[in-house]
C-alpha cells in the first residue's frame, strides 16, 4: 500500500518544514505549497489524500477562499477531500465567514466546509492523530 499523501499549504516556510518533519516521521508523503494559487494547482494535479491548510496571513482570508474555490471544482474528489484548517477559529462558534474579496458565491453566515481544525502551535502528536482520523473518515477512494 502506497503512503498517504498530505498537501501542506502555509506561507510560513519554517512551519511547513516542521510539519513536513512530523508528517514524514509519521510515515506520510508530504508535498508543500507556500501560497494559495500553488496550493490549489497542486491539489488538482497531485490529488493528495489530506490537505493541511493555514488561514494564511496577512490577508487572513486566503485560506478560506482556497477552501471555497476547492469545493467549487467539479468532481467527487474536490467535494470530499479532507481539509484540516490550521487555526483555532472553530472554537469561536459565533464566528461567521465573510469573504472580503470573494466573488459573492458564498453568502455571509455560511460555515467553512472543512473536516477539522487544529490550533497553532500545532502539537505534533495531535497533528498525527488528526491526519490519521481524517484519512480513515475520508470518502475519497
Amino acid at each position, binding site marked *: 500500500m502506497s503512503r498517504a499523501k498530505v498537501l501542506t499549504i502555509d506561507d*510560513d516556510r*519554517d*512551519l511547513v518544514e*516542521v510539519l513536513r*518533519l*512530523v508528517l514524514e*516521521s509519521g510515515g506520510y508523503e508530504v508535498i508543500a505549497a507556500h501560497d494559495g494559487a500553488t496550493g490549489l494547482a497542486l491539489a488538482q494535479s497531485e490529488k493528495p489524500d489530506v490537505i493541511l491548510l493555514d488561514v494564511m*496571513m496577512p490577508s487572513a482570508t486566503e485560506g478560506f477562499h482556497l477552501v471555497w474555490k476547492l469545493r467549487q471544482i467539479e468532481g467527487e474528489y474536490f467535494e470530499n477531500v479532507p481539509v484540516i484548517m490550521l487555526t483555532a477559529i472553530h472554537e*469561536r*462558534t*459565533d464566528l461567521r465567514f465573510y469573504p472580503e474579496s470573494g466573488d459573492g458565491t458564498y453568502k455571509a453566515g455560511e460555515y467553512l466546509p472543512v473536516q477539522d481544525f487544529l490550533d*497553532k*502551535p*500545532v*502539537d*505534533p*502528536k495531535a497533528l498525527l492523530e488528526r491526519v490519521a482520523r481524517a484519512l480513515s473518515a475520508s470518502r475519497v477512494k
Partner: protein
Amino acid sequence: MLPAGEELVDRIGWLIRLRWLALVGVVCGGFFVRYALGVPVGPWPVGALVALLALYNLLLAVAVSRLRRQDRTGTAMAIVLAPVQLLKLWLSVQDLLRSLVTAAFGRRRGDLTPRGRTTLGYLLVPRELWGMEPKEHVFNAAAFAGAQITFDLFALAALLHFSGGIENPFIFFSIFHVVIASILLSREATYLETTLGFGLISAVGLGEFSGLMRHVPLGLLPEEGAYQDPVYVAVVLFVLGSTLYLTAYMATSISAGQRSFEREAWRLSDDVARKAELLEAAYARLRQAERAKSKQMRKVAHELKAPIAAVQMMLKVLLEGHAGEIPERFRDLITRAERRTRELAQLTQDLLALTRAREGAVVIEILEVNLAELTARVVADLRDTAERAGVALDAQVPGDLDPIEGDPVGLQQLVANLVGNAIRYTPRGGRVIVRLGELEGTLRLQVDDTGIGIASDDLPQIFEEFYRASNARDYASDGTGLGLAIVKAVAEQHGGSVAVTSEVGRGTRFTVTLPLRGPS
C-alpha cells in the same frame, strides 16, 4: 449689551404688567376725580381710550405668553404682527425725528439715511429700533419693545390731552417711559423716545395754547386758563423737557454701566464655554490616541503570534523526537525553552484580548450571548484543571437566563480568567464557587474562592495591566498580569463593572455586573 431673547421677552412682560398698573391708576384716578372731587369726568373720551388701551395690552399679553411657549418666529410672529403693523406707521414719525437728531449731532450713519430704502414699508421702519428687514420674518424683541413704548407715549399724550393737557400734573409720568426705554433699548433709541415723548406733550401744550387743539379742562384748578398763559406753558415745558432729558441721560448711563458688566459676564461665560470645548476636543484626541495605541499594540501582538507559535512547535517537535533522539542534557534546556515560549504565547494572547476589548465595538461583532451557557461551558472546561489542583469547583448557574448583547469571545475570556485565577490561587483542599444570576436588570457573575487572598494594599491596583500582587507572584511564578485587566476591559466594554473583596489567607470574591441590555 442690550437685553436679548428670553430676557427681553420677560421684560416686555414686565412692561405689560406696568401698563395694567397705569390703566388701573387712570381708572381709579378718574373715579376719584369724578366722585370724590365732584368733577364731571365722563366716560368719553378718557374711558374709551382706557378701554382701547386695555384691549391693546391684552393683545400684547397674549402675544407674549405665546412667545414664551413657542419659538419666536412663526405663529407668534403672526399674532404679534397685527398690532405691530399699526405701530410701524407711528414709528415713521420717529424716523423723521431721528433724522433731525442725526442732523443735529452730525452723526450720519449709513442705516439712518433714507438712501437705499426702496419700499415704503422700509421707509417707515426706523431700522435701528425695529431691526427688521421687510423680508426678514425673524422676530425682533427690541423692536417690539420700542414699538410699545412709542405707542405708550402716544397713548399718554392722548390721555393728557383729554384731561386738561399741560395743566395735568401727570405729564411727568412720561419719565417712566424714558426709564423703561433706557432699560430695554439702546442709548440712541432712548433719546429718540424721550424726544418723541417731549415732542408729543409739547405739541399738546402748544396746540392747546395756540387754539389749534380743543382744550379739555381738567376741572381741578380753581381758575381755568393756565394753558393759555405763555409763561406757564414755557415753564412747564422747560421743566418737563429738562427733567426728561436729564432722566434719559442718567438712566442710560446707569444702564450702560450695567450692560458693560453684563457684557463682561457674557465674555467670561463665553470664555468658559470655549475652554470647555477645547478640553473636550483634547479629550477626544486623547481617546483617539489611546485607541491608536491600542490598535498598534494589537498589531504587534498579532505579528508576534505566528513566529512564537512556529518556535513553540519546533521545540515540541524536537522534544517529541520527530527529528530524532536528543541527548538528555539538551532535553532539559529545550523543555525550559518550550515553557518560556508558551508563556510568551500566553502574553501575546492576553495582549490581543486586552486590546480587543479596549478597542471596543470597532473590531468586534456584537451578538446575542447566553451567559449561562457560556459560563457552564467554561466551568466544564476548567473542571480538569481544578481536579488536578485539588480544588472543588462548584457552579450555581441557572438554565434560563435572558441573553445579553455582547462579544462572546471577550465574555468567554472574562469568565475563564476569573474562574481560572480562582482555581490557580486556591491551595489544595480549597473551594471555588461560581454563581450567576439576574438582579434588578443586571446579570451578576460572582466567583468566590478560599484562596490566598489579596492584600488591601494591592487591591486598588490589581486591575492594572501587568500588575501582580506580591503574594500572587510568590505563589505562582508564571502569569502575565493581564488577566484581570482583560476582565475589567471586557466588563466595561459591555457597560458593566467588576468589583473585588478579599481577605489575605481567607479568600477572594470577584463580582461582575453586566447590564441586561448591552452597551448602548
